[in-house]
């Protein structure tokens, strides 16, 4: 398995994440898409770490995972709170912060 094919997979996953975030209205799916983008970058990190034969990329991947875990906790809490208040998990319904 070459680094190039790993990077192609990573870019594909990232693109799927971006498209998901931009196109889906369900807050949970949008959230899932963000996780997908994070893990696509993680894949890129470890692919480069493997090519260079050092641990820096793997370290960065761990950092991203920790941050993602923390983010999931906060993000899901917000989504649940919004759902309770508005009976909706659609991101388009939470549009009060505008002109």
């Amino acid at each position, binding site marked *: 398995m070459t680094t190039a094919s790993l990077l192609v997979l990573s870019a594909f996953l990232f693109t799927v994440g*971006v498209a998901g*975030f*931009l*196109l889906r*209205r369900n807050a949970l799916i*949008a959230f899932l898409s963000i996780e997908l983008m994070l893990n696509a970058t993680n894949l890129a990190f470890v692919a480069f770490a493997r090519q260079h034969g050092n641990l820096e990329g793997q370290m960065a991947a761990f950092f991203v995972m920790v941050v993602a875990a923390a983010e999931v906790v906060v993000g899901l809490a917000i989504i649940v709170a919004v759902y309770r208040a508005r009976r909706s998990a659609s*991101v*388009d319904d*939470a*549009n*009060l*912060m*505008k*002109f």
Partner: protein
Amino acid sequence: MILLETFQAVPATGLFSLAWLLIAIPLATSFLLLLLGRVSDSWGHWLATLAPIASFAIGLLLFLQMLGADEGSRAVTVHLYDWISTGSWNVSVGLLIDQLSILFVLLITGVGSLIHVYSIGYMAHDDRRRRFFAYLNLFIAAMLTLVLADSYLILFVGWEGVGLASYLLISFWAHRDSASAAGNKAFIVNRVGDLGLAMAMFTMFSLIGSVSFVDVNAAAGEMGGWATLIGFLLLLAACGKSAQVPLQSWLLDAMEGPTPVSALIHAATMVTAGVYLVIRSNVIYAQTPEATLAVAIVGTVTLLAGAWIGSSKDDIKKVLAGSTMSQIGYMMLAAGLGPIGAAFAIFHLLTHGFFKANMFLGAGSVMHGMNDDVNMRNFGGLAKAMKITFLTFAAGYLAIIGFPFTAGFYSKDHIIEAAFESNIILGTLALLGAGVTAFYMTRLMMMTFFGQKRWEPDVHPHESPAVMTVPLIILAILSLFAGLFLNGWIQDWLAVPTGHEVHNTGLLHITPIGWLTMAVVAVGVFIGWYMFKDDIPKTVPQTKNVFAHAGRNDLYGDAFNEHAIIRPTKELAAGLAWFDRTAADGVPEGGATVAAGLGGLLRRTQNGYSRTYGLTLVLGVIGVALVVALGQLG
């Protein structure tokens, strides 16, 4: 060009080092009375009267000591403290007591004391008498600062102080709108003159870095053309303070103040400060014939203008005010004649201080008996009702018209003679002024003290109390005899500070011009007597005489100011306000409008959909990535 010897002042010793008490005593009483408030209502006026008397006693002691000293060491400087001390630029506060300033000290405190005593009676029924006396003391302190200063800057402090006291006292009865307006007018017109003095000081500072009299006198010789500029600026200052044309308009309105104020400030002392300034700067004027001539011309114009106004007014105080302008015009004329006239200017200033204070206080006494009426058409026949007032007023009258051997006879004749000596035109005009003076003073006497009684029905004239008549008697004696004592002596006494040329001024030495003056005065008296010996109508007679109309309207001085200065200034202000509203405010307001409009447009992008923000983020990242990638390629 005449080179003058500048005085050499010696440092103060003994009694002279206490000279600051002259100023400190009235200043302290003034503040005391103002701060204590009603507590001092019952005794404040007595304390305030003691203050100028104490200053007078100190002044007299200093004077006697100077009289004993030899001529070279009479001028004494008293260093008080350093005001500003910054390396090369130092201003110290000090007093200069010389032959000139000590005469002023005696005049201010002497006449001031008499007027304080008089005011005890005159203001007896006023609720705010204590405040009045506090202001009078403040004036005495400021005026003494003015004449005792050893530099123009300290003089300026006193100059502004007397301006403040004058303002407070003119508008003392501020419940009358006219008094309030008159106070403002005096203050504002004086600002114009103050500008002249301030700019003269700026010029001196930039030229020689000092404004002390000693330094300025020493450097006057090297000033060249700057001396002319300083001379004109000082003349502007003198015009403002001494109510000379073109800044004369405030003095007639200043008569709104209580009569003792008119006597002290607007006749005897403050209005002569301009003359003092010119005489004190005589070394500068010696360098500049142009400015000196301008002083003489201003004096001549004013002496005629004042006499003109005095001839046509029915208000007794305004006649005296016009007369004051006129007499100060004589002093300015004498000061503008250079060294031959300077001592006579001071001589006339002193005698004028006596006889004009006398007559103003006499007018106050008349008003006191006539329920504060000032219209001479309601007077008449008062000679019998108010004997002491009449006799003392008559002494002042004789002195001002220059009746032989009275004070004015010597001082005014000397000025006319000196004027003839230097310029025939100025001399002739001064002689004419003497005739008009005799006319309007005779008119005043006839309308007030002689003829039919034209009193209002409820008026019962009575003589004033002794506290008012005693100062009148003392001033009357001085009006009659001061000239005899001062005549031979004053020129020698003032030789050093004014740099004079001694004239033959014997008591009985009457020159042809002296005889001529007497003849002109006699004609003036005769015309005055002839025109006003018969019945005088109660109302102002209608007349088509343009001269009378001009005189009654103060020679249109107010109208001139209105059209030449006030209206253009208002127009200019209105124009500037329009510019401010449109152009000056328009620029920032226009900018703000554009920014607000742009903000409104940009606000549209905030639509509240998180997808839009996400897209923006993605596009931004792609943009950054493109820039980086293209950078790598390039």
